[in-house]
């Protein structure tokens, strides 16, 4: 069995519980400093105080409502922008001409911080649901587009030759080679994209709207309820981790061969 530099084997008790101990220790330190007012409890309320606020928000249904609203926006934007990125990415991966035509534009637009376009988007799309959707979609579009193009292009040419030698037409080439061959890249892109979509949705909610995790965080700040600001921040971070976790699970189901490969490498 492989040992790390501490001489502990992977999967040993220390490796499994060590990270949790670190987190528990940090929380305890924070709790102690806050309670003794070593750090200002006004700005750094004790974790137990924040936890009580979270429980309150959970019980009166606020978390369910607002997390639901935000997640629905994220998923709508992700589907819309990601879907468009996927379709264009597959087309660009398949056609070098289309790739040459569009790639410079992508290289130009992609590095622009999308959040900087929010004022413009508000002018064009008003202050309803539309601007949040557009911003999240825009954020999800590029990571999916770029990873899909890379995913199609990295498929070894041999696989196309094998498929063609057995008489595969364009549809079968897509179904049996292009799609499964680019899937690992696609999932990597999707994980990046859903995170960007969440960040942009929260950012838009901070500025406009009556609901959602971002709006609640901003509202709590405006009314100087600092523990609640922390509470919404924690909920947002759990929401993001959940999305990432769900995508990871979906990847395992969709790509059993990758999962088995990863287990073998361990």
């Amino acid at each position, binding site marked *: 069995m492989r040992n790390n530099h501490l001489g502990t084997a992977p999967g040993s008790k220390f490796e499994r519980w060590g990270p949790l101990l670190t987190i528990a220790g940090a929380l305890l330190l924070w709790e102690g400093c806050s309670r003794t007012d070593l750090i200002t409890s006004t700005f750094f309320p004790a974790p137990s105080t924040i936890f009580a606020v979270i429980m309150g928000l959970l019980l009166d249904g606020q978390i369910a409502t607002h997390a639901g609203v935000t997640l629905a926006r994220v998923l709508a934007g992700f589907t819309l922008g990601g879907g468009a990125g996927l379709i264009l990415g597959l087309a660009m991966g398949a056609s070098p001409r289309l790739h040459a035509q569009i790639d410079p534009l992508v290289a130009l637009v992609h590095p622009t911080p999308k959040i900087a376009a929010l004022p413009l988007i508000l002018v064009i799309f008003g202050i309803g649901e539309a601007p949040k959707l557009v911003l999240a979609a825009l954020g999800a579009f590029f990571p999916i587009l770029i990873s899909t193009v890379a995913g199609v292009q990295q498929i070894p040419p041999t696989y196309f030759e094998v498929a063609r030698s057995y008489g595969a037409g364009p549809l079968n080439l897509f179904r049996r080679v292009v799609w499964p*061959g680019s899937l690992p890249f696609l999932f990597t892109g999707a994980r990046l994209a859903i995170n960007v979509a969440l960040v942009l949705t929260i950012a838009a909610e901070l500025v406009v709207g009556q609901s959602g995790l971002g709006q609640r965080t901003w509202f709590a700040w405006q009314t100087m309820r600092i523990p609640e600001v922390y509470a919404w921040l924690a909920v947002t971070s759990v929401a993001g981790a959940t999305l990432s976790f769900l995508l990871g699970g979906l990847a395992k189901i969709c790509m059993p061969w990758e999962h088995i490969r990863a287990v073998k490498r361990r």
Partner: protein
Amino acid sequence: MRFECQELCKSFDSSHSEISALDRVSFAADDHEFVSIVGPSGCGKTTLLKLIAGLIEPTAGRVQMSNGALRGRPRSAFVFQDHGLFPWMTVLDNVAFGLEMQGVAQGERLERARAFVERVGLGQFADHYPHQLSTGMQQRVGIVRAFVTEPPLLLMDEPFGALDPQTRRVLQGELLRLWGEHRNLVVFVTHDIDEAVRLSDRVLVMTGRPGSICDTIDIPLERPRDLASREPAEVSEIKWRIWKQLEREVRASLAIAR
């Protein structure tokens, strides 16, 4: 099934000039024949095989095929150098791939694929993915994938090139056994003279680039063959003759003077 290559030429465009890979290659092969092609590295053996398979088009000349009606089914199956198994399909799905492309219903194709996989003793690996198998096993799957489609013409591009000598020897025997049951026309590319002589009815020797055929040798060995038996003196003679031809070509390609 019979085919004839008529004055086949193939050149590739590179950034500066045109590179000629094959120069007026002509030969014919008949039903049930096992033909090997040996030649120095880069002489266009693989290119020739791909031309016969119809995967690429010749610059000049043609491949004439004559066989019964096959209703749009590919005439040939190709066994690739590096097995070419799809990493995202199980062994069984890989073997069934050719049948899938022919439109054979799922139940039937999996049944036929399983029968073949079991015949080469890989039954317990049917649901594994290629990367879970050893190189030798992977190449066997690659060969079985071609045989299961029952192609009249089987094109093999150095299928044992990446294997160690012992594994190679065992798989040669297995290939002959499988082939003995089907007797399709096989064109087998290799740079191993020994392998070419053991397996084939006829060996074609190619020159260095641009490749053309410089010698054709019939192998006077009985079938079925026992690869474990000692080879007759005349076989050593044939190997010597092939080697002398190849040596000249290899020296020329390496610019080594005599």
